[in-house]
């Protein structure tokens, strides 16, 4: 009971610092807009309106947040093990490719729900294997996982272009090579009463499962221990290799599921639109959320909102579409900087609490009695 009363200052710190950082990011962006000749307050108004203001527009934010949540887990989960994985884009692409392959292979031979489940599983398996490969290289060959997962991104994108431009190409897609489209009945539906597809629910569930897995299970405890000190974990007999492979597989399968959601709910087929930046966006979400899956939900909403406001900035303020990139970059630079502020403000320091007097140490005589 007592730790709850003690920890409020820490909780306040970990809430106020990210929010303060986002405010400072907004301020810097306002300065940037003013220099570029737009009225910053009008720009803030447009962003708010087109991202969060109305239910009809907030749905656009939710649609973009769904793949970001899933993709963020691809970085956040391995981070708890001390690994910096940035292969989100590659796992997402592989997931999308696998999902469409299965979806096209089954076609309408099975009920839509079965097809969707098969596509989801295929996406998860493909993404999972992709990142588990980076994990295996790390464990068995000591290949830096950041670099290998980065290279795997490029290999996945090349594979996508190869398959979409050749073996899987729908001849009727002229300007932008695409695969054959999925059958309409096999597409993921929307949540009743909204335009938001079920991918959002997948994202929320995945984030909650990830949180419980890492914070509330022995498996998660083992992973965090190994992330804190790998030698201590080895000495304690933890199966570090197994942990690495399993965590990397789970991480990749989340990004793979994001790819499946994108093709089965938004694109309908697989083409180069699949790598529109949800991969790198997910990395930013993970770091900004400090690798906490629940915080990642909110960060994904924020980034989804920024992405959703791009069109309106272009239309109403004549700002180029790259404005959202500048905004996103500024916010994340400030959020990353804010990580260094923890513990710098004395207000958030826990005051020494009165503790119960320690029970008197047992006298040597008693101890020997116990021993004998």
């Amino acid at each position, binding site marked *: 009971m007592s730790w709850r009363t003690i920890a409020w200052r820490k909780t306040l710190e970990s809430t106020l610092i990210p929010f303060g950082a986002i405010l400072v990011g907004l301020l810097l962006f306002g300065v940037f807009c003013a220099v*570029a000749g737009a009225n910053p307050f009008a720009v803030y108004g447009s962003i708010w309106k087109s991202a969060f203001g109305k239910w009809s527009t907030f749905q656009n934010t939710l649609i973009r947040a769904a793949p970001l949540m899933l993709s963020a887990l691809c970085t956040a989960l391995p981070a708890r093990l001390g690994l*910096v994985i*940035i292969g989100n884009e590659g796992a997402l692409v592989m997931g999308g490719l696998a999902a469409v392959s299965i979806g096209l292979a089954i076609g309408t031979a099975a009920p839509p729900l079965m097809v969707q489940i098969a596509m989801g599983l295929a996406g998860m398996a493909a993404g999972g294997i992709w990142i588990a490969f980076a994990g295996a*290289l790390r*464990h*068995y*060959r*000591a*290949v*830096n996982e*950041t*670099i*290998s997962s*980065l*290279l*795997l991104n*490029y*290999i996945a994108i*090349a*594979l996508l*272009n*190869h398959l979409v*431009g*050749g073996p899987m190409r729908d001849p009727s897609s002229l300007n932008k090579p695409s695969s054959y489209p999925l059958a309409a009945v096999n597409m993921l539906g929307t949540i009743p009463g909204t335009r938001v597809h079920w991918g959002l629910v997948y994202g929320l569930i995945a984030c909650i499962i990830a949180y419980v897995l890492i914070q509330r299970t022995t498996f998660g405890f083992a992973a965090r221990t190994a992330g804190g000190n790998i030698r201590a974990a080895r000495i304690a007999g933890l199966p570090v290799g197994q942990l690495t492979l399993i965590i990397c597989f789970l991480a990749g399968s989340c990004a793979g599921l994001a790819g499946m959601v994108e093709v089965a709910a938004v694109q309908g087929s697989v083409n180069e639109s699949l790598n529109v930046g949800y991969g*790198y966006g997910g*990395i*930013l979400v993970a*770091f900004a959320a400090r690798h906490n899956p629940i915080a990642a939900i909110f960060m994904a909403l924020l980034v989804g909102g920024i992405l959703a406001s791009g069109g309106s900035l272009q239309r109403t303020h004549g*700002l*180029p*579409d*790259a*404005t*959202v*990139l*500048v*905004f*996103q*970059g*500024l916010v*994340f*630079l400030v959020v*990353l*900087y804010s*990580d*260094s502020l*923890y513990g710098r403000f004395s207000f958030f320091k826990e005051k020494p609490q009165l503790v119960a007097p320690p029970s008197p140490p047992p006298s040597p005589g008693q101890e020997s009695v116990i021993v004998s």
Partner: protein
Amino acid sequence: MAAETTALGWWGVLLAIVAGTMRGGTPFLFVSLGECLTEKSGKINLGLEGTLLTGAMTAYAISYLTGSPWLGVLMAGLAGLMLGAIHGWLSQQPRVNDVAVGIAMIVFGSGIAFFLGKPFIQPSAPQLPTINLSNAAMPPALQAALQISPLFLLGLGIAPLMSWFFRSTRWGLYIRAVGDSPDAARAMGVSIFKVRLLSVMIGSFLAGIGGASLSLYYPGVWTERISSGQGLMAVALVIFAGWKPVQCLWASLLFGGAQALGPALQSVGIQEGYYLFNAAPYILTLLIMILTCSPKRTLSGVPGALGTDN
């Protein structure tokens, strides 16, 4: 050009690869030298992709506005220097991960480049002059291959110079000390913060010039898709080169050549696997890392403080 290459047959393929090696290798050369300098000081700069794009845009815009491509090259370097200052300062704050800062800098740098570069997509800017080693009697494909950029020659000079700098100068020693063993550097009385900040900044200056070679030499235009990930590849290239500047030169040529392989084969009618050939450099790097890494020892030449918190 494509027709000429077809006429030359397989010699044309070889020639196209040689030409592509020098043209495509130039940006690789500058970003990898920049990344090499940065990593020698113990920090990773993944944000060179953003720096490259900003450099390409700045060089093109300045060249268009002033008519002087060389001023464009200089300003591209300075633009890189400024992005490097942000990265160098931010990535040295406590608990701030340099990989994460790098990714934020990719977003920020490419955002700045696309934002400011929007008006310059249409107009054509004066290009850097090239040094022509061919004569009119040669077949056109050969002539095109022998148009050598002064920037390529500049990079060719910087690689051994940087190698000498690390080996034989006091400042080179400081950088190596800070990168290998920050504690020893601190004992020497070297400011780790300043050395790393300067290394990241000058590394980004070089990457900015790499961007200039994209927009003012080859392909010689400014579009939002001008970089095909050369900035991100820099990190892999430096590993491939074992953190040695002269090896960076060979690695850049190899990667430039591998990049030219796909289009060159396409020009003789081999369409199959075009994109897979594009992936050749990445697969090659991965294979080399798998073969050279081992859990029993660290890579030779890796700066000791790389990827650690101090």
